C-alpha cells in the first residue's frame, strides 16, 4: 500500500539515484557537478524525511555549501564553458562499472546479512541539545575525545594552508 510518506521516499530516492546516474553519464563537467548537487540534496531530503533534521542541515551545510561550491570553483578556474569532456575508452568504462558493482554488492550483502531489530524505545526526535551534550560529553557514550582529535586535524590543515600561502617575501631591507 502506497501512502504519502512512501511516495515521498520514492521521489527522494529517484532524485538521489537519478542525480548520481546523470552526474556520471554527462559529458559536460559543470552539469556533472550540478547533478551531484541534486543527488546530495536528495540525501538531505531523506534525512529530513526520517525527521533527523540536524544531520540533514549538516548535510546541506557541508556537502552543498562547502564541497559542491569547492568543486564548482575548481571547474571555474580550470575549464572552458561549453567544452565536452573526451569520450572514455571502453576498458576504463568496464573497469569503473566493475568497481561500482563490487561496492554495491558489498553494501547489499551487508544489508541483507544484518539483522534489523524493531526499536522498542519511543522514537522522539533527537534534539540539538542532546547531540551537543553527547558531542562534548566525557562520560559513557560521549564524543569529547574524537571531537577534539578531529579539531586538531583541522587545525593542522589550517596551519599547513597558512605555511603554503606564506611564501617568504623577497628581502626588502
Amino acid at each position: 500500500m502506497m501512502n504519502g510518506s512512501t511516495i515521498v521516499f520514492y521521489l527522494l530516492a529517484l532524485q538521489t539515484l537519478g542525480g548520481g546516474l546523470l552526474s556520471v553519464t554527462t559529458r559536460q563537467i559543470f552539469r556533472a557537478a550540478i547533478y551531484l548537487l541534486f543527488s546530495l540534496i536528495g540525501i538531505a531530503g531523506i534525512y529530513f524525511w526520517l525527521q533527523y533534521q540536524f544531520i540533514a542541515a549538516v548535510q546541506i551545510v557541508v556537502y552543498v555549501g562547502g564541497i559542491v561550491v569547492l568543486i564548482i570553483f575548481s571547474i571555474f578556474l580550470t575549464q572552458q564553458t561549453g567544452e565536452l569532456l573526451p569520450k572514455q575508452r571502453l576498458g576504463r568504462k568496464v573497469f569503473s562499472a566493475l568497481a561500482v558493482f563490487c561496492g554495491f554488492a558489498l553494501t547489499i550483502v551487508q544489508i541483507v546479512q544484518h539483522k534489523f531489530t524493531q526499536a522498542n524505545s519511543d522514537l522522539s526526535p533527537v534534539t540539538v541539545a542532546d547531540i551537543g551534550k553527547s558531542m562534548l560529553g566525557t562520560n559513557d557514550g560521549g564524543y569529547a575525545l574524537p571531537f577534539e582529535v578531529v579539531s586538531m586535524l583541522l587545525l593542522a590543515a589550517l596551519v599547513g594552508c597558512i605555511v603554503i600561502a606564506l611564501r617568504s617575501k623577497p628581502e626588502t631591507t
Partner: protein
Amino acid sequence: MWSFSGLATGIDAWLTQRFNPALSLTIEMVLAGIAVITLFAVLGLVLVLMERKVSAWMQIRLGPNRVGPKGILQSLADTLKLLVKEGLTPNSADKLLFNFAPFLAIIVAMLLMAPIAFAKDLQLWDLNIGVLYISAVSSIMVISILIAGWSSNNKYSLMGAMRSGAQIVSYELSAGLSVLSVVVLVGSLQVSDIIKSQADGWWIFKGHIPMVVSFVTFIIAVTAETNRAPFDLAEAESELTAGFHTEYSGMKFALFFLAEYVNVFIVCAVGATLFLGGWMPFHIGHWQGFNHVMDYIPSSLWFFGKTFLLIFVIMWFRWTFPRLRIDQLLNLEWKYLLPISMVNLLVTTAMAILGWHF
C-alpha cells in the same frame, strides 16, 4: 486574544473531516505555498517601491511619482513590463542550466520562509534546528548564482559569479558567528524558543555591548551575503555590466530580482527575530501600564515593523556607501569582522556561563 493558531486548527479540522489525512495534508501544503507566493509578490512590489523612494530621498530627488497616487503603482507597472518582455536565451549558453538558475534562486528563497515566525503562532514549520536550517539552506543561494554565471557563457557573468562565490562563502562565517552568540545565550536553535527568551527584553538590550557588536557584524555580514551595495561586486554595474544576470531578461531576470529582495527581507526577519525579539512587543522592566499598552499592538505589526526597520537600515547603507574593491572586501572580512566576532563570541559565552546578562 485572537491568534492564528485558532485559524490554522480550524482549517485543519475542516479538511480532515472531509478528506483522508494524506489529501488534507497536501491541500494544507498547497494553501501554505499559495500564502508564501502571495507574500513574495507583495514583498517584491513593496520593497522595490520602498527602495526607489528611499534612494530618491537620500539623493535629494523625488523618486517615482507619476504612476498612481504618489507613484505607488510604479512597481506594478514595472512588473507588467517584465512579464511581457521576451526571456532571451543566448545561443551558446548551457540552455538547461541557464533556464534553471532563476528557479533555484526563488525556490531557495521560498524554503527560507519556512521557519520564520511572522506573528504569534504564525509560523510554517517550527523545526528544532531553525537557525541552522536557515544558514544551511541559504548556502544553496550561492549555487544558483554560480550556475547563472557559468551557464551564460559570458565573461562578465563568470567574473560576477566568482566574486559572489568568494564573497558569500567568506561572509557566511561572521554571519554564523554572530548568530551563534545569540544561540549561546538562548541555549536553543529553535526559533520559537529564541523569541520566547526575549519576552522580558530583547537581546540587543539584555546582552550589553557584546550583543550590540554582534548585531552590527550580523548586519554587515548579511548585507554582503545578499550581494547588496556596498558589497555588490557580483553585479557591479560599472565594472561587470550586471554581473551574473547580464544575459537574463524578462521574467527570468525578474525572478533573480525578486529573490534578491526576498532574501533581504529574510535576513532582516532573522535579524529582527534574533536581536529585536521577533513579534515580542517592546517592554520596559516594571512599567506595567506601558507594557500593557504595548501588548495591544498586534504581534504581526511588531514583527513587520522591526523587519522593515532593518530593511531600511540596509537600504540606508546602500545609498550612502561607495562600493568596496575586492581586496578591501576580503580584508574587511578576514582581518576585521571575523576576529572581532570570534572574540565577541568568547565574551558572550563567558557572559552566558557567568549569568551576567539580564
